């Protein structure tokens, strides 16, 4: 870790933080980059870039095989990253931290192994209307093959989960409740404890999609008492291509493997094989070693900054942005008020298409997301095809929010109908 990242939490300030992210020095044309697309992917601090570089330059070897120095170093770094990630989410054991390619793969893994082994016709899987496509489509695919019923919890007009009919939706037929912790469009932070308690009453298992929560707030998987929890590295300062599936130990041990291959076996004979123990049972093939080490460095970085600080910083920024954007003529914010949301704001601006909006903002150096953000059902709920989304992270500033607001005013002028 570089020296600049080793500051006490109380001294963390954005100006210093920004120096840890080389890309934030970039210009887009003649304008300094204003990066507000963090819900899509975050930028990477020097500490993470150095961890990747150091691994490839000095320690590159395959893990869990080979009795030579490099392989031992690579294995120690890879497994060390797993330990630090386990600590970061307060998993009781490293063995319950399974490396995946990301949130999407984590959900698919649960669908293909736990789902295939436990779901049958007549059973129900309950999701919500604010899911990312990654928590809808894997269940639809499995549903076609297995024949269970997929239901969803609707959304209220203000963008919260409508729990008024939960008793009818969540019944003893429900075998799994799978929902997003923080919505990538509405920003809504869902009431995990309430939903977990309701699911436990009917004996349903619980999967939580933490792609938009783990990067932005302290998460304790034991306190949440969920059965499965999934998230991605690249949204939390780490590299792409790696993520985590956390699961309760008894469940993971009972689940059949998904992909077969090297590393996930204890013994292979042509007549049959025996599976490896956790977590390797679910990690077939050479893993994303550098990426896991990079995620370990990202977790160290976020821990040094302090996740409470990150959450507080984003909340302040989001409150400010909500107030600023609300003043812009024709701007409509999707989702709840600033107090009940994570650090992102999706919106529409009059009849201006979000892609046109994004193009105008890009000409001002501002990166936002435009489209349906892989959550079409949410947009259907609001009767819009697409939206624009500004999403914040630890390095964003009020000045950047001001620049966003000014660029939106400019778009209003260009597209005035």
């Amino acid at each position, binding site marked *: 870790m570089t020296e600049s990242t080793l500051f006490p939490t109380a001294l963390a300030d954005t100006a210093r933080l920004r120096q840890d992210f080389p890309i934030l020095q970039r210009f887009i044309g003649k304008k300094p980059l204003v990066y507000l697309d963090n819900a899509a992917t975050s930028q990477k601090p020097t500490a993470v870039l150095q961890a990747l570089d150091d691994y490839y330059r000095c320690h590159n070897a395959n893990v869990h095989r080979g009795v030579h120095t490099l392989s031992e170093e690579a294995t120690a770094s890879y497994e060390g990253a797993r330990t630090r990630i386990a600590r970061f989410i307060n998993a009781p054991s490293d063995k319950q931290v399974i490396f995946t390619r990301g949130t999407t793969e984590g959900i698919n893994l649960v669908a293909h192994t736990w789902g295939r082994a436990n779901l049958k016709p007549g059973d129900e899987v309950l999701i919500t209307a604010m899911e990312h496509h990654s928590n809808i489509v894997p269940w639809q695919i499995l549903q076609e093959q297995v024949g269970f019923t997929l239901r969803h919890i609707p959304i209220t007009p203000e963008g919260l989960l409508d729990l008024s009919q939960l008793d009818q939706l969540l019944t003893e037929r429900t075998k799994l409740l799978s929902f997003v912790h923080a919505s990538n469009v509405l920003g809504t932070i869902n009431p995990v404890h309430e939903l977990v308690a309701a699911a436990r009453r009917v004996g349903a298992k619980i999967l939580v999609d933490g792609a938009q929560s783990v990067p932005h707030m302290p998460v304790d998987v034991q306190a949440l008492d969920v059965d499965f929890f999934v998230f991605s590295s690249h949204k939390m300062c780490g590299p792409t291509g790696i993520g985590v599936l956390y699961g309760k130990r008894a469940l993971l041990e009972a689940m059949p493997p998904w992909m077969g291959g090297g590393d996930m076996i204890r013994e292979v004979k042509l007549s049959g094989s025996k599976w490896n123990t956790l977590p390797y049972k679910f990690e077939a093939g050479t893993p994303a070693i550098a990426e896991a080490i990079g995620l370990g460095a990202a977790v160290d970085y976020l821990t040094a900054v302090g996740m409470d600080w990150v959450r507080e910083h984003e909340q302040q920024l989001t409150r400010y942005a909500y107030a600023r954007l609300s003043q812009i003529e024709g701007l409509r914010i999707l989702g709840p008020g600033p107090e009940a949301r994570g650090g992102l704001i999706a919106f529409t601006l009059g009849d201006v*298409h*979000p*892609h*046109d909006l994004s*193009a*105008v903002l890009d*000409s001002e150096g501002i990166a936002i997301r*435009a*489209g*349906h953000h892989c959550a079409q059902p949410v947009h259907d709920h609001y009767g819009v*095809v*697409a939206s624009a989304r500004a999403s914040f992270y630890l390095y964003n500033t009020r000045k950047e929010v001001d620049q966003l607001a000014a660029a939106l005013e400019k778009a209003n002028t*260009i*597209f005035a*109908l």
Partner: protein
Amino acid sequence: MEALYREAILDHYKHPRHKGHLASPDLHFHDHNPFCGDEITIELKVENGVVVDAAFDGRGCAISQATASMLMEEIVGKPLDELKQIDKEYILEMLGIEIGPVRLKCALLPLKVLKASVWGLDEWPE
């Protein structure tokens, strides 16, 4: 920015020509772009192999909708055989702007729908 949203494009976007539907079109096609949700429908009235009337409907960004509007003005009075020759360069020249790879698909959606209409396709060949 002014380079991408030049006056003519904004004018076609804000005041689309030939927008709506024909009473009894001879040829028509509809398609959308799954990445951005832009939608375009084109309807053509044809007499003796010549387009005598054209209409488009759709929703989407300024580039896709303005391109469709401009294209409608271009094609009325032209034989189908000539429309089969329209290519990407024709569209870019018509728009008169520099366009990056991401927005190119916005500009080319109306062309795709027009081509499918002119050839009388039921669905786009994969």
